[in-house]
C-alpha cells in the first residue's frame, strides 16, 4: 500500500527567484524549487541519481544542442539543471538526462501555485 500523499506549502512566489533552484526542507528531505522562465515551477529532490550529489546546488542553464562539427547551437535556456559534481545535464521537464540513453532520472514532485503560495505534493 503506497504512502498517502500530502500537500506542503513551501513558501511564497517571491521566495523563489527565476532561474535559481532554491532548496527547502520537507519532512527532513531537501527539495529544490525551481521557477522557470515561463512561470512554471519544478520541485526536485536534492539528490543526483548518478552519484548522490546535491544536484540542486548546481545551476540552471540552457544547453548546446548536438549539431554540426565546429558549430554551436544554444537552446532551452533556463530549462536544464546541471549537477555541481560530474556535470550531468537534466531536463527540468522530464527529469531525464539529456542527449544520452540513461535510466537515471531526477526525482520530481508535483508542484503548483495556490493563492501566491508554492505547494508541493509529496
Amino acid at each position, binding site marked *: 500500500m503506497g504512502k498517502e500523499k500530502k500537500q506542503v506549502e513551501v513558501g511564497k512566489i517571491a521566495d523563489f527567484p527565476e532561474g535559481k533552484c532554491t532548496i527547502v526542507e520537507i519532512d527532513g528531505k531537501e527539495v529544490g524549487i525551481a521557477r522557470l522562465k515561463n512561470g512554471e515551477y519544478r520541485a526536485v529532490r536534492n539528490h543526483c541519481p548518478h*552519484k*548522490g550529489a546535491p544536484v540542486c546546488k548546481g545551476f540552471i542553464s540552457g544547453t548546446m544542442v548536438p549539431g554540426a562539427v565546429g558549430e554551436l547551437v544554444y537552446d532551452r535556456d533556463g530549462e536544464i539543471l546541471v549537477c555541481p559534481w*560530474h556535470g550531468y545535464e537534466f531536463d527540468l521537464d522530464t527529469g531525464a538526462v539529456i542527449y544520452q540513453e540513461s535510466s537515471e532520472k531526477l526525482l*520530481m*514532485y508535483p508542484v503548483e501555485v495556490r493563492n501566491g503560495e508554492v505547494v508541493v*505534493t509529496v
Partner: protein
Amino acid sequence: MDMPEKPQTSRDATLKVIDCDVHPYVKDGIKSVFPYMPEAWKQRFIRKNAHVSSHARPLKYEHPNGNVNRVDARPPCGGVSGSDPHFLVKDLLEQNKIQHAVLNCLQTGSLCSTLSGTDESVVLCSAFNDFLVDQWLTVDNRLKFAMSVPSQDPQASAAEIRRLGKHPQIVAVSLPLLNILMGNRYWWPIYAAAQEMDLPILVHVTGPDSIFYGPPISAGGIPDSYVERYVTLCQAGESSVNSLVFSGVFEKFPRMKVIFVEYGFLWLLPLLWRMDRTWRQLRHEVPWVKKSPVEYVHAHIRFSTQPLDEPREPKDLDKLIELMGYDQLCFSTDYPHWDNDMPGQSLRGLPKAEREKIFWDNAYSTFRMR
C-alpha cells in the same frame, strides 16, 4: 513526474576508509606563506606581484562548467572549496565516515613542476609545506599529508624530505612530475631520501600537464579542449610504470613504494601483459630486471581508484578489477574536485573482504601510517 522514492545510497557502516587524494587549497596562495619564507624571498615575490598572480590555465583548458572545484563544497565562511580545514573535516571526513585523508596540495605541485623557477620553487615548496603542517595538520589528527618536493632540483628535494619527513602526520612524498620518465636517474636522489624515511612516492597530475613545457605531455600532441586533455592525462602513468620497472628502480631501491593517484588503473592489465611478454623475449637488454615486471608492479606500485570509469554495465568494472587482483587499488575521493567519488557510491558490487582491502588495507600498508 511523480515517481517513487529511491532509497539513499548507503554502505556497510563497518567499512573503514583511507582517502588517498584530498586537495587542500591555501587561501591567498603565495601571500599566505610569506611568514614561512626568508624576508628577501618575500620581497622578491611582492615586487614581482607573485602574490596576486592568478596562475590561470589557458582558455581552452578551463573547465567547461567554469570551475574544477565543487561549488557545493565552498566553506560557509566563504572562500574556495578546500580552503578551510575545519569545514573539510566536517564535510568530507565526518559526512562520509572517512578515518584518514591524505592531503596533496596542487598549488605547491604546479609551482614546483612548472610555474616557478628552480630557486623560487625550492623556497615556495618549503613555505607551503610548513604552512600546511602548521595550519592544517594541527586541526585534526585524521589529516595526513603528502609533503611536496621541488622536483626541478632533486638534491633540494632530498634535503626537504630529510628536513620535514619525520613529522608523524606526513605519510608520503608528493613528487611533481616533469617530462622526464620516472625511471631516469635524475630522480634517484629523491627516491633514496624517501626510502630512507620509509615514505612512499605519490604522483598526481599537478595542473600544467599537457599544457606547458616542463611537466609530462600527452602522447602524440597537444589536446584541443578540456575534455580531450582530461582523457589523456592517464598516459603519463602508463609510461612511468613501464620506465620504473625496466630502468631497475626497484632493484636499486628495494623498499621503495609508489602510488599513482588519479591516473586511472584499467590500463594496467594490458600494460602488464605487454611488459611481461616483452621481458620474456628480450630481458637480456635489461638484465637487472631479474623477475617478471608483473612481480615488481605488484610488490611496489599502487593505484588510486578515482575517477572510477563507468561502463554501461557496472559488473564489467568489477570483472576487470577481479582480473587485476584486489591488492593494488587504494580508494580516493579527489575532494573537492568536480569529478570526485564518494565511498558510499563506489565499488559497491565488490565482495566485502575485497572492498576492505581497497578502502583500507592497501593504503594502510602503502602510506607510512603510525
